């Protein structure tokens, strides 16, 4: 046997490779197990009667002949379950914040169309829905303000009387003297930008199945959640069950994008009812219910002004934001999550000395807003990137050049923004150049100008942004929120057969973490990837876990995997050194084999595990250690992730329909674990950004009724709406966290709406049209074009 060059042997082999996913075989063959696929004996089905008023007092409920429907078991309203739980309260340390309590069913009053009010439990969902037809509710309609601009008014009708106001959050960030620079600047641009309400629309509806174990007096909730640990912790309190008798399992989950990342009424409800009835109870939201009542998102109104000097340098930014948070503050993120992020991230990746951002979060009679891919930053990036292009146009400066002059440069990191965010080193400038290179920006400009010469409406738009990903314990994911989102625990064990099991608090729901974390573990341990099973999505796996959200799982999960695998590996090598009678420094583990460089001796993980666990006396009893470890990782600060998006669009002057003809993303996501999966995340997030830019809008009319309750009304992108997306990965200096990974889950949704809004504005620049509302639908373009033409004529 030849001598082994340890430096080569130790080099990671799997991280960085386009490894095919281990999740795929089960999902491709219909062998996945989603919540609705689980059907225990004695299962009961829940159907929910929802409010059809935006704000009303419930005077009386009449169940009529509902119990005459064969199979109906029980019907409950809020009064029937009052003593069976404690409300969940999404508290916050923020000053002046009012936390609306969350209960399974509306008590006394309803506050949005779609709010759960009455529960019908039956032997089949068909029977339960039949029973709903017989139930009638006597409402006393109450006044309300459906639009955020009306709801903030001092005399607006109150949605929660106890709060004393509809404005339950108000924050201000300020640095420098923005009024002065606005007064003195060579150029000032301003706008009133509206990012309308969205729904995350994962393909699988929210699904919950609660099973009460009479023997152990224990509850297991199978939930389509992406935060099983958080749900376990809060329900443990609500139901007064200790964590060892309250378990939350997220099996295969059909997407979330944030929509399944908060505590849901129905999630509490199945638990309360399963314990009360001592039968398994399942709720599966149909599409109409999810479009009506899943947590919604964005819904921001941003008035902003940007001061720029004659050379295109950004001097100051001022913004006033009203976030429409809906009828309740969501658990655990609170209603502050989305609006406060807007003013936190508004200055973007730019050097801007003077800043003032004010935000108010206001209650309106609509479903609560919660996390949705990108959180706050799709809206803030839309407003900021529009202002930058408006300024460039006013100065006659190329939109790339104005960004080049203002993006924070490598030597300026760490850079503190006017809102207090600290940007760690990331490839801000390199992403801008990378996107332009990949798209061949000069050629694109020539193509645009040639098309324009033919009278076609063609435009190019850019968007640069930065986000914080993999945030550690220094700051909460949602401001002021009193739960820990900054740590991740991994427990790794090699069992007596040599198989490796690595358990986490994360909860993969499409991200492919069973693959990527196995790559990390196998590299670190030196075992074979096929010998590693990644366990996740189960509150029983680690003492405290939260789940997968906020682009955290590669950074925190990857860090925890690395840290823990190193401890296990030290135990492996210590045992091997004894068994092989060689110094520990001579040992190298790779591909499931431990080799000694000083001899020909080798040992597989399987042989080693057998010796450690099964062969009494092979290792002296006082030196023998189980091959297990559990470690927690906290990146403390988190990592910055940055990107530039470039879009080219063409507008049909006959139909006003927008086609995205070219889309390029340059992003810095640090060390890449699996490029195949990173590309997939970028593609999917950009598609959602295209949806936000051109198609998707939750519409409530003046009566508070939802007008977009089907997929024929709430339009999401299909294959013909999305172009091929060019991606360039910029791997600049790695961030200072274990593994050098950055979070990659959300960025596409952050950059794409702004880039497309800029491209549409560019395409209509001959008319002086500036896009200020998304989605920029054919109807909106028609109106903007007509208005512009009317003004020109006048």
């Amino acid at each position: 046997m030849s001598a082994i060059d340890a430096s080569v042997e130790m080099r990671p082999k799997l991280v960085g490779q386009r490894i095919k996913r281990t999740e795929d075989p089960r999902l491709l063959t219909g062998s996945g197990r989603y919540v609705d696929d689980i059907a225990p004996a004695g299962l009961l089905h829940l159907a929910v009667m929802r409010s059809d008023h935006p704000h009303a007092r419930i005077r009386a409920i009449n169940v009529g002949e509902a119990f005459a429907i064969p199979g109906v078991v029980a019907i409950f309203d809020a009064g029937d379950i009052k003593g069976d739980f404690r409300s969940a309260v999404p508290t916050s340390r923020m000053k002046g914040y009012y936390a609306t309590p969350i209960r399974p069913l509306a008590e006394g009053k309803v506050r949005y169309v779609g709010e759960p009010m009455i529960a019908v439990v039956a032997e089949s969902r068909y029977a339960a829905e039949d029973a709903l037809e017989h139930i009638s509710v006597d409402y006393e309609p109450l006044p309300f303000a459906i639009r955020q601009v009306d709801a903030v008014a001092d005399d607006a009708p109150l949605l929660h009387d106890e709060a004393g106001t509809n404005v339950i959050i108000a924050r201000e960030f300020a640095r420098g003297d923005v009024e002065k620079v606005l007064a003195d600047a060579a150029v000032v641009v301003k706008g009133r930008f509206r990012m309308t309400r969205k729904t995350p629309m994962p393909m699988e509806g929210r699904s919950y199945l609660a099973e009460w174990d009479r023997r152990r007096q224990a509850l297991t909730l199978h939930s389509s959640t992406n935060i099983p640990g958080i749900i376990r912790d809060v329900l443990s309190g609500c139901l007064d069950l200790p964590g060892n008798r309250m378990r939350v399992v997220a099996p295969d989950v059909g997407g979330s994008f944030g929509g399944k990342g908060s505590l849901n009424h129905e999630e509490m409800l199945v638990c309360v009812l399963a314990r009360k009835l001592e039968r398994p109870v399942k709720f599966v939201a149909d599409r109409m219910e999810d479009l009506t009542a899943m947590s919604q998102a964005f819904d921001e109104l941003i008035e902003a002004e940007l001061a720029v000097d004659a050379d295109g340098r950004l001097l100051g930014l001022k913004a006033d934001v009203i976030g429409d948070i809906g009828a309740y503050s969501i658990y655990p993120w609170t209603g502050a999550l989305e609006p406060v992020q807007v003013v936190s991230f508004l200055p973007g990746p730019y050097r801007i000395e003077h800043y003032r951002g004010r935000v108010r979060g206001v209650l309106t009679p609509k479903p609560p807003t919660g996390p949705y891919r990108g959180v706050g930053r799709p809206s803030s990036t839309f407003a900021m990137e529009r202002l930058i292009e408006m300024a460039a146009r006013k100065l006659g400066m190329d939109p790339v050049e104005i960004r080049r002059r203002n993006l924070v440069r490598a030597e300026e990191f760490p850079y503190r923004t006017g809102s207090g965010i600290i940007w760690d080193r990331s490839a801000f400038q390199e992403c801008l150049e990378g996107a332009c290179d990949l798209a061949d920006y000069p050629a694109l400009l020539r193509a645009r100008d040639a098309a324009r010469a033919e009278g076609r409406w063609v435009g190019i738009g850019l968007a640069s942004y930065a986000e914080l990903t993999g945030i550690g314990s220094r700051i909460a994911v949602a401001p002021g929120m009193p739960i820990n989102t900054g740590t991740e625990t991994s427990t790794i064990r090699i069992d007596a057969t040599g198989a490796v099991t690595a358990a986490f608090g994360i909860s993969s729901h499409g991200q492919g973490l069973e693959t990527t974390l196995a790559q990390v573990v196998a590299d670190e341990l030196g075992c074979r990837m096929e010998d590693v099973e990644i366990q996740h999505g189960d509150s029983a796996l680690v003492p405290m876990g939260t789940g997968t959200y906020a682009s955290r799982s590669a950074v925190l999960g990857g860090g925890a995997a690395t840290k823990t695998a190193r401890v296990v590996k030290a135990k492996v090598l210590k045992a091997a050194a004894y068994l092989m009678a060689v110094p520990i420094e001579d040992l190298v583990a790779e591909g499931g084999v431990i080799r000694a460089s000083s001899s020909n001796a080798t040992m597989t993980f399987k042989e080693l595990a057998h010796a450690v666990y099964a062969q009494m006396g092979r290792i002296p009893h006082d030196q023998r250690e189980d091959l297990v470890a559990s470690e927690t990782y906290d990146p403390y600060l988190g990592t910055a992730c940055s990107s530039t998006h470039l879009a080219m669009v063409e507008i049909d002057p006959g139909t006003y329909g927008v086609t995205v003809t070219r889309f390029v993303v340059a992003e810095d996501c640090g060390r890449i674990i699996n490029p195949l999966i990173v590309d997939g995340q970028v593609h999917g997030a950009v598609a959602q950004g295209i949806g936000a830019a051109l198609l998707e809008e939750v519409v409530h009319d003046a009566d508070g009724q939802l007008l977009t309750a089907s997929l024929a009304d709430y339009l999401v992108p299909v294959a013909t709406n999305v172009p091929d997306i060019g991606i360039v990965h910029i791997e600049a200096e790695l961030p200072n966290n274990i593994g050098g990974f950055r979070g990659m889950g959300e960025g596409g949704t952050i950059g794409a709406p702004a880039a497309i809004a800029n491209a549409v504005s560019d395409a209509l620049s001959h008319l002086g049209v500036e896009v200020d509302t998304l989605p920029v639908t054919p109807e909106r373009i028609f109106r903007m074009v007509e208005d512009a033409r009317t003004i020109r004529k006048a």
Partner: protein
Amino acid sequence: MSAEARITVTVNGLSCTRTVDARLLLSDFLRHELGLTGTHVGCEHGVCGACTILLDGRSARSCLTLAIQADGANIETVEGLGRIGELGRVQQAFRDHHGLQCGFCTPGFLMTITDMLRHHSLENDEDIREALSGNICRCTGYEHIVNAVRELARERGPLK
């Protein structure tokens, strides 16, 4: 409303006879009566395509079909395309090209594509995207699915 009917259907080559409610959806019949939970229900109004199956060889929305309408029919579902360790060709192409993420819409895509490959020319990406446009995927942005279908279209034999 609870009129019942006795139906016989062939599902993935196996014949089965059941007495069902006249109003039972074919998707619910496959999932709950036969335990074939690979067929997923995404919208129950015929837009998303997650529940797509093959009904007598052509793609159909099982959420818009009553079980009794399938009496005497030959049904193919995702479970009939292959199994773990023996993926069918369309399934393998999805894996090779990373054409799925959460996997919920995937069975519907696989069945639609099986039909499209048998019956449509799919000469270019525009054709392929048009063929896929009746199915919604919220995760992938479609590009990897298009890549998989392009490969399948190039290698397949003559149309049926």
